[in-house]
Every structure is written in structure tokens, then in C-alpha cells.
């Protein structure tokens, strides 16, 4: 269970982006968070991904409260949440090849020995052909790069997946391929999903339920 309980967060304590937001994602569930640009969806996604510490409220992940950390959330909890960002260009280290990008989380967590085997699973799962794996981010398209970023998010087999406008930069066919890759992963692992975006049609078709962002808070829920 991923639970945000009356969370207040922002980049300046005096003017938070949102106050008192609550959202729950049950195990295995997929939730779409809809809202207009600038309403605070991405900040909420960063809080859910344990990348941004809330100023107030509780964030509970599988029964463990992870609200109060000093510099960053504990590693074992961070790695339980996979994140895909909106813009693959800024989300990929320009010096790494796509192959390095995909297995970087394994290397960072001391599981170097598993890297080759996991790469062989991940690349086809996200639709990356072997000839693309040796290329660097500036040598591939946005869609190919976003596939690699999704692969990186899945590398550690996270129990939670946060997709912050993952398909906003992509064409319809790549969007469909990425959504299919996420769903295949979820079917295999039973992972939960929080998908943030403003494509109402896509999120309603993709997710078990959607939450509409209204009056500065995620409010209306639709089955």
C-alpha cells in the first residue's frame, strides 16, 4: 500500500505547491492522476517516488512511514519505487550508453553480476533492439530513449511504479508500446502503478481508477 496522508509539499515552505493532499494506491492497483499543467501533479509524483520530502503529512509505503528523512529516503525504499520522468532527454545521463543506462541501478546497488542477464531481459521487454544498446542518448530518438528510461525504472523489479507524464513527448504507437510494456511488467510482478498525466482518455483506459486534481488537491475518484 502506498499512502499519502494530508501531505503538504513544495519548494518553499511559505508557498507550498499543494496542501493536505491524500492519495492511496493499493497493492497491484493502477491509479491515474489527472490534472492541468502546474497544479502540482509532478511534485506529488516526486513525493510518491521518495525523491521529494513532504513538508507535512505522512507518506506510508507498505506500512513503513517514510516521511522524515534527512538527505534522502532509505535506499531499500527508494529502490522499491521505479520512476519514469516526462522528458527522457534530461532524465538520461548523456555519457552513458543505453545498455549502461538500463543496468545502472543494478551496478549502483552492487548487483553487477546480474547486469548482463537482466539487460538481456529488459531490452526486448521495452522494445530496444541490440543495435540501439551501444548508442548514447543523443544518438537515439525521444521514444527510444524513453524506452531505455522505462527499462532503467524496471531494472530492480520495483513493487511500485511512478510514471510522471511518461508518454507526453511521444507518438501514439510508442505510447501504446510503453503502456503495454508497463502492463506486462505489472502482470508478471503484481506491481502497483501511479501514472500522472493530463491525457484523460489514455489514463482512463490504462488505469484501474483515475483521480482528478481539483481545487489544488487530488479529489474526484472515478472507477
Amino acid at each position, binding site marked *: 500500500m502506498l499512502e499519502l496522508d494530508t501531505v503538504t509539499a513544495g519548494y518553499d515552505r511559505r508557498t507550498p505547491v499543494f496542501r493536505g493532499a491524500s492519495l492511496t494506491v493499493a497493492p497491484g492497483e493502477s491509479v491515474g492522476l489527472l490534472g492541468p499543467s502546474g497544479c502540482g501533479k509532478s511534485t506529488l509524483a*516526486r513525493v510518491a*517516488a*521518495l*525523491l521529494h520530502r513532504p513538508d507535512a503529512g505522512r507518506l506510508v509505503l507498505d506500512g513503513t512511514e517514510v516521511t522524515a528523512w534527512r*538527505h*534522502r529516503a532509505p*535506499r531499500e525504499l*527508494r*529502490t522499491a*519505487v*521505479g*520512476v519514469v*520522468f516526462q*522528458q527522457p532527454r*534530461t*532524465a*538520461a*545521463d*548523456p*555519457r552513458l550508453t543505453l545498455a549502461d543506462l538500463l543496468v*545502472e*541501478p543494478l551496478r*549502483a*546497488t552492487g548487483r553487477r553480476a546480474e547486469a548482463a542477464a537482466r539487460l538481456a531481459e529488459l531490452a526486448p521487454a521495452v522494445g530496444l533492439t541490440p543495435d540501439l544498446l551501444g548508442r*548514447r542518448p*543523443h*544518438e537515439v530518438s525521444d521514444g527510444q530513449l524513453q524506452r531505455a*528510461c522505462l527499462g*532503467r*525504472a524496471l*531494472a*530492480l523489479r520495483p513493487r511500485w511504479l511512478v510514471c510522471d507524464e511518461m508518454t507526453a513527448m511521444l507518438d501514439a504507437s510508442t505510447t501504446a508500446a510503453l503502456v503495454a510494456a508497463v502492463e506486462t511488467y505489472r502482470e508478471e510482478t503484481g506491481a502497483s502503478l501511479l501514472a500522472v498525466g493530463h491525457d484523460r482518455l489514455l489514463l482512463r483506459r490504462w488505469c484501474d481508477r483515475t483521480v482528478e486534481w481539483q481545487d489544488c488537491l487530488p479529489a474526484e475518484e472515478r472507477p
Partner: protein
Amino acid sequence: MADPRTHRLRLWSSALVVGVVLLAVLVVPPLVQLDEQAVDLSRKLLPPSWEHPFGTDDLGRDLLLRCVYGLRISLLVGLVAALVATVVGTAVGAAAGALGGWTDRTLMRLVDTFSSVPHLLLGIFVVALFRPGVWPVIASVAVTHWLSTARIVRSEVLSLRTRPFVEAAISGGATRWRVAVRHLLPAVLPQAGLAAVLMVPHAMWHESALSFLGLGLPSHQASLGNLVQNARSSLLAGYGWPTLFPGLLLIVPTLAIAGLAGVWRDRLNPRRRSELML
């Protein structure tokens, strides 16, 4: 933006000059068993000739030989001072930028404190603490030049550490150390490396300035600064070459090293590397 041909021309011309300079300072002194300090008053202030291509100075010493020895000392000062200043500056800047908080505030106030003193004055203070020699000059240049590198590296790290690719690395379980070593340092290396290479000629100029003021190397020891300082009276008497050749040896390697720095910057940038098909 330079096309690949201009890029190659810049690389090879700069490399040629730097190569010739390095060959001269490394090979000539051990091969030519001549004393660059040997005085021969019967040959003083001879103009350039086949026997003395750079002429002789006011004590009859061969200027070509003294210039080679001088360049050797000046390059040594430049390289070591730039290396020390860059390593210290990068470490301080990266620590300040990556750790933030009180570490950042403390380190940057230290940088501000050093910066508030005119750096020639601070350099003079450092050399005045020791007996004249090469190492006090190196220390003086290094102490006054790590500040700009620290600022450059800190600002780069500050801008990088909020980028999504760093957040993705943190989310993927990277420790602070791994984020710094794997993602931040490689990204700031082009700037730090460029600052280091550009600092070499700058440090050579500082050695020359200190020696010119009589505060650098002992006056009998050949360094480019000492050569220009010793040639001052000859210049006023109408003899140009004792100043011209050490001056040229300061300017030409400076430009060549700056040229190589530009090439290096292009090679460290993955996007430029692809464009140039290096």
C-alpha cells in the same frame, strides 16, 4: 562552431607547438652538456646568428640555451601549480555543490575570504614566507588559483544535482558517493579540465610576474620571468632580442596550450564528439 577540418588543423598545429616545446625542454638540457649560466663578457649582447640563434644577453650567456632552461622551469611551475589548483578547486567545488548546507556555506566563505585579497598580493605573501625557489612559486600560484575552479565546479554541480538524470540515479539506489563519481564528476570534468589547461599558461605568466618583481626564482636561475627582468636594461639600451625571445616563448606556448584545451573540450563533450566523428 568549428568544422572538422578547422578542428583538426587547430589540434595538429597546437600539438606540434606543444610537442616541440616539450621535446626542447626535456631533451635539449640533458643532451647539450652546456652551462646556461656560463658568463663570457667578450660575447655580450651579440645579435642572433647561426652560432647564437637567439643572440646573447648582457653577460654573454647564450639566450637560446637560457630560454630552453627558462621554459623548462616555467612549464614545471605552470603544470604543477595548475594540477594542484585544479585538484583542490574541483574537490572543494564538488564537495560544496554536492553536499550543500553548512559544508557549502563554510567552503564558499573560505573561497570568498581568499578572493577578497588581491591574488598577486596573496601570492607575494606566500613566496615571502619561504626562501626563493621553485616550490614557493608553485605554492603561491596554486594558493591563488584554486578559487575560480572551485566556483566553476560548484555552480556546475549545483545545476546538475537537480537534473532528472541525477534524481533517476538516486531513485535507482545510487549512494551520494556514486552519484558524485559516476554522474556529477564526469559531467564537470570538461569544465575542470579546461580550467586546468588554461591555467597552465596563466601560471607561467604568474611565475614570470613574480620573478620579474624579484620575488620568484633566484635571479641567476633561468626562468622566462627572470630572462625578461634581466633583459630590461638591455631593452632600454636598444637591444630588443633579449626581451623578444623569452616574450615569444611565453606567448606562443600559451596560445598552443589554449588551442589544445579547446580540442579537449570538444572531445569530452559526447555530442560534439559525434558531430566531429572523432
